[in-house]
């Protein structure tokens, strides 16, 4: 056992000396490798992080949302619809919601105005999202002045800012009470933007949706599962788009690695011959080259993955933010929660490290199995 350890130590020492004597080449390879892992890991970590956040958010979303359609467009819903739905078997609760959009010319952005289902602000008061507060330069106690549906000034006193941890969904949000909301948009009492449904038995969600549609043919019913799938599809599409671009980089790196790693120079072949002549067998040469490949690619992998982790979880992924998060004037300033997924690390590792090590070993194996005499004579 000691001899085995000493042998490995000797091989690693020689490998390190080898890496050092081709410093320029190996440093170039290490940097290219690290950059590739960094980009790939950033996209994967950020995409997965966003999906995870979206799943967490949707966990609290209503099981079903019912909207009214008129001529195929979303329209306000009469209060009578809420009663119709409430009468359906399997529905445990129905709540009418009030929300809408308002273009704020002062900052050139769309705001989302909403009446919270609980703890609504007092009359003339509002609670606003962090991005809106930043854009408008507002703090608690300041007055936010908007123009209502008729173009008249509409002032709201900022009661508080919304928790920045929920910035993904609350960046452009403005919460106000029902009376202020109706006055601002000119919506008469008894009409709602849409309705949320709670279903007593989760297995009956689809059945309840069918019943709603049967009772109210002009309705559109959206389930939580459909929303989750939509989010997933959007993130997958965006992540796929980025990965497609990155695949070009991956291909370029593969070519570089193949050229650098597999193309044994005459000098390298001669060195293999010398090693064999002085008493190394093919296994020793292969083990040394394996150490060389593993040391280079594993350190580059760790460096690339570590940088990607910092990039995504601490610096907010500035490189991919616009593509993966979406385009907006009021950008949510948010970082996804740090997470380590062993399956994801293993996938990235096998995609980047194994091909490189294999590309290194094949030509070495071919040279190492020749007679040393033959290699030196070349």
């Amino acid at each position: 056992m000691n001899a085995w350890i000493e042998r490995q130590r000797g091989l690693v020492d020689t490998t390190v000396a080898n890496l050092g004597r081709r410093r320029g080449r190996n440093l170039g390879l290490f940097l290219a490798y690290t950059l590739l892992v960094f980009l790939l890991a950033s996209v994967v970590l950020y995409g997965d992080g966003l999906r995870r956040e979206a799943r967490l958010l949707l966990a609290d979303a209503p099981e079903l949302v019912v909207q009214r359609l008129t001529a195929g467009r979303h329209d306000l819903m009469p209060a009578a619809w809420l009663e119709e739905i409430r009468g359906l078997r399997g529905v445990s609760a129905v709540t009418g919601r009030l929300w809408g959009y308002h273009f704020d010319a002062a900052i050139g952005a769309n705001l989302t105005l909403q009446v919270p289902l609980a703890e609504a602000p007092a009359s003339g008061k509002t609670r606003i999202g962090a991005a809106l507060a930043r854009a408008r330069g507002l703090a608690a106690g300041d007055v936010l002045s908007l123009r209502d549906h008729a173009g008249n000034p509409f002032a709201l006193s900022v009661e508080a800012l919304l928790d920045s941890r929920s910035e993904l969904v609350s960046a452009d949000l403005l919460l106000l009470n029902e009376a202020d909301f109706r006055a601002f948009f000119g919506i008469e009492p008894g009409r709602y933007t849409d309705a949320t449904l709670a279903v007593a038995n989760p297995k009956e969600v689809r059945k309840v949706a069918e019943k709603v549609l049967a009772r109210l043919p002009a309705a559109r019913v959206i389930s939580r599962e459909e929303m989750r799938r939509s989010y997933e599809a959007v993130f997958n599409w965006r992540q796929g788009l980025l990965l497609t671009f990155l695949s070009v980089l991956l291909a370029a790196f593969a070519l570089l690695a193949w050229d650098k790693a597999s193309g044994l120079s005459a000098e390298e072949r001669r060195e293999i011959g010398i090693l064999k002549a002085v008493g190394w067998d093919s296994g020793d040469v292969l083990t040394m080259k394996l150490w060389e490949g593993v040391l280079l690619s594993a350190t580059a992998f760790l460096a690339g993955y570590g940088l990607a982790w910092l990039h995504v979880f601490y610096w907010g992924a500035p490189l991919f933010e616009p593509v993966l998060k979406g385009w907006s004037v009021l950008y949510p300033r948010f970082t996804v929660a740090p997470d380590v997924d062993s399956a994801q690390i293993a996938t990235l590792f096998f995609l980047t490290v194994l091909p490189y090590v294999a590309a290194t070993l094949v030509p070495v194996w071919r040279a190492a199995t020749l007679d040393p005499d033959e290699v030196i004579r070349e």
Partner: protein
Amino acid sequence: MIELVAVSKVYNAGRPNQYSAVRGVDLAIEHGRVTALRGPSGSGKTTLLSLIGGLTRPSSGRVRLDGRDISALSERFLTELRRATFGFVFQQFQLIRGLSALENVMLPAVPTGRPHARVRARALELLEYLGLAAHAATRAQWLSGGEAQRVAIARALINDPRVIIADEPTSHLDSALSRQILAILGELRGQGRTLILSSHDPLVFESGLVEHLVEVRDGRLEAAGP
């Protein structure tokens, strides 16, 4: 005793560039003596040394070491035998560029699994013995011809082999350096090691070092000396 029985070596067999480097050689080399192969360039001296030292296998015939047929051994056993029995000094030094003199000397000991500290101490001892202590950290490419040849000798000795095989040990050296190298080889002979050389340098044969002379031409032995 090292014996070659009807040994032939053909390179690139079956290809248009096929050639026979060694043809039907019978040779016996006793331990503890200095044997020299003499002949012009391309006569097959280097190939014979490769066959004797197990660097290559004969196309036909047998190579025996102390009665044991080594030409039929698997690569692993042949390498182990080569590592333990033979030390090689190659014609063009064959040091690895970029590695220091010390690292080059230690290379043959790496697969043995001997403790690193002991191998390093032995390598430094050999470099000192050969007057190279000050050059231990010098990269191989920065050594002079004489220094490189002495590093190659130190490397050949690191595993303490019984047999030293030296291919044209003086071919790239001036007369003074050649005499120095021959003196070192004489000392190795004095330690009871077997030396097998190839050369066409008159200095080698005038030095009185050679005890058994073998003339080689066109891959065949012409005559064997005492």
